[in-house]
């Protein structure tokens, strides 16, 4: 199961973990710079070269803050909630193949593991809103649960077309099955649905109703500060990185590409999709909650089903491989 290019598993694990955390931290910088670019501003450009050390400065600042739990909160749950968000997102990276023979755990059910972990992330959000004992947090986490549960349905369905084509749930097999043609061409419908669903799963604008700051202060993490807030914040960006990595793995051939080493291709593609997440955030307003839900159930779910049926029919007609 373990394929780490000859490295001991602990070394591979730690390098993947730190690599992901660094990419997630850099995507905070990337997002702020890109949003500046989209709004004809400069973004943070003072701390370090191109403002790259802004993230470091922010991290030092947020660690220096008091680690405070509100007296009215349910303390144990309040403390447990943020690690769930970040841990589930990080755990999913175990199944993502970053390069040939460089994956922490090539599970036979890798894709299901990813979906399971993103379902578990709902607990972090739900528990944080409940434990905060504040109306804004509770409203935010109620919205988050409704949104994530609805969007998970067709997130899973949109990926089934990929699974049907590759004949496997293992992400390594799925990447290998894209040798001839990347899945983004035959599975363009699945790609579109998965992209929308991953926006909703990571609670990013335009689907940021759980933390809608114009209505709910900060939604489910209103009562959080300091290190615990940093976990939510970083967890969001780990989630964005993860979903970009999954789009790359499932639809854009994973590590494959000419000339450059595979890990570089993987990184470049992932960063491209992180930038796309930022572009969508910079352009689209937040829908009303009923619009969000009806968009999910009435448009995205039928599209995902249509994609699955069509893919299945074509694969059946093509006959056994």
């Amino acid at each position, binding site marked *: 199961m373990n394929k780490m290019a000859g490295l001991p598993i602990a070394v591979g694990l730690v390098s993947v973990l730190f690599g992901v955390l660094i990419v997630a931290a850099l995507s905070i910088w990337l997002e702020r710079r890109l949003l500046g*670019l*989209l*709004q*004809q*501003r*400069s973004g943070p*450009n003072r701390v370090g070269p191109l403002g790259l050390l802004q993230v470091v400065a922010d991290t030092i600042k947020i660690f220096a803050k008091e680690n405070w739990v509100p007296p009215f909160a349910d303390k144990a749950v309040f403390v447990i909630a943020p690690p769930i968000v970040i841990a589930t997102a990080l755990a999913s990276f175990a199944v993502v193949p970053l390069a040939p023979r460089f994956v922490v755990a090539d599970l036979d059910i890798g894709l299901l593991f990813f979906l399971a972990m993103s379902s578990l992330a709902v607990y972090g959000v739900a528990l944080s809103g409940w434990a905060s004992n504040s109306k804004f947090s509770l409203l935010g986490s109620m919205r988050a649960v409704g949104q994530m549960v609805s969007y998970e349905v067709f997130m899973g369905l949109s990926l089934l077309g990929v699974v049907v084509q590759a004949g496997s749930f293992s992400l390594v097999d799925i990447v290998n099955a894209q040798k001839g043609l990347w899945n983004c061409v035959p599975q363009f419908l699945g790609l579109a649905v998965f992209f929308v669903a991953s926006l909703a799963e990571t609670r990013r604008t335009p689907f940021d109703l759980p933390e809608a700051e114009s209505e709910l202060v900060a939604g489910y993490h209103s009562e959080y500060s300091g290190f615990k807030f940093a976990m939510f914040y970083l967890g969001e960006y780990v989630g964005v990185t993860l979903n970009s990595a999954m789009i790359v793995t499932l639809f854009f051939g994973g590590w494959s590409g000419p000339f450059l080493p595979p890990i570089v291709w993987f990184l470049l593609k992932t960063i491209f999709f992180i930038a796309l997440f930022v*572009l*969508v955030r*910079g*352009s*689209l307003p937040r829908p009303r909650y009923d619009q969000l839900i009806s968009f999910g159930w009435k*448009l995205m779910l039928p599209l995902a089903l249509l994609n699955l049926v069509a893919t299945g029919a074509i694969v059946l007609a093509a006959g056994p491989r």
Partner: protein
Amino acid sequence: MLSALRSIWIVFKHVFMPRITVQYPERHRALPPRWRGRIVLTRDERGEERCVACYLCAAACPPSCISLQSATRKDGRRYASFFRINFSRCIFCGFCEEACPTYAIQLTPDYEMSEFERRNLVYEKEDLLVSGEGKYPLYDFYAVAGVKPDPAAAGKRRGPVDPRSLQP
């Protein structure tokens, strides 16, 4: 759905537009010519203080941030024995400049006055006085006022002011 894609495209095009931000400490915006910034006290062409301590600036000042004390020199010329502007109160409205009959008090295009302590924003007369004539060179109040400094008035208190007279 299409409108969402269209707005994404419109926003994306902003990447190629020029930045609006001015990188401030390195670059400055071009100020309008009548910018109202830091207040100075100017001198006339002979290098004497123009201020005759008439209190009109202090009277015109909406937040009352100007305080001064008049005194009379040996030759009868009035001057301000102290002149203090509290720039933490000043709203840079320029009313003092408009009120000033001698063009002594003037606003300059300087806005970089930040201080770490509020009390450092209280400028005394020696901080306010500049060596030049400011915006109105060659203007000499006593040359156009029609009165000369009265040496007899030196050191004496004046009687009640005649409000119908425009003369100092």
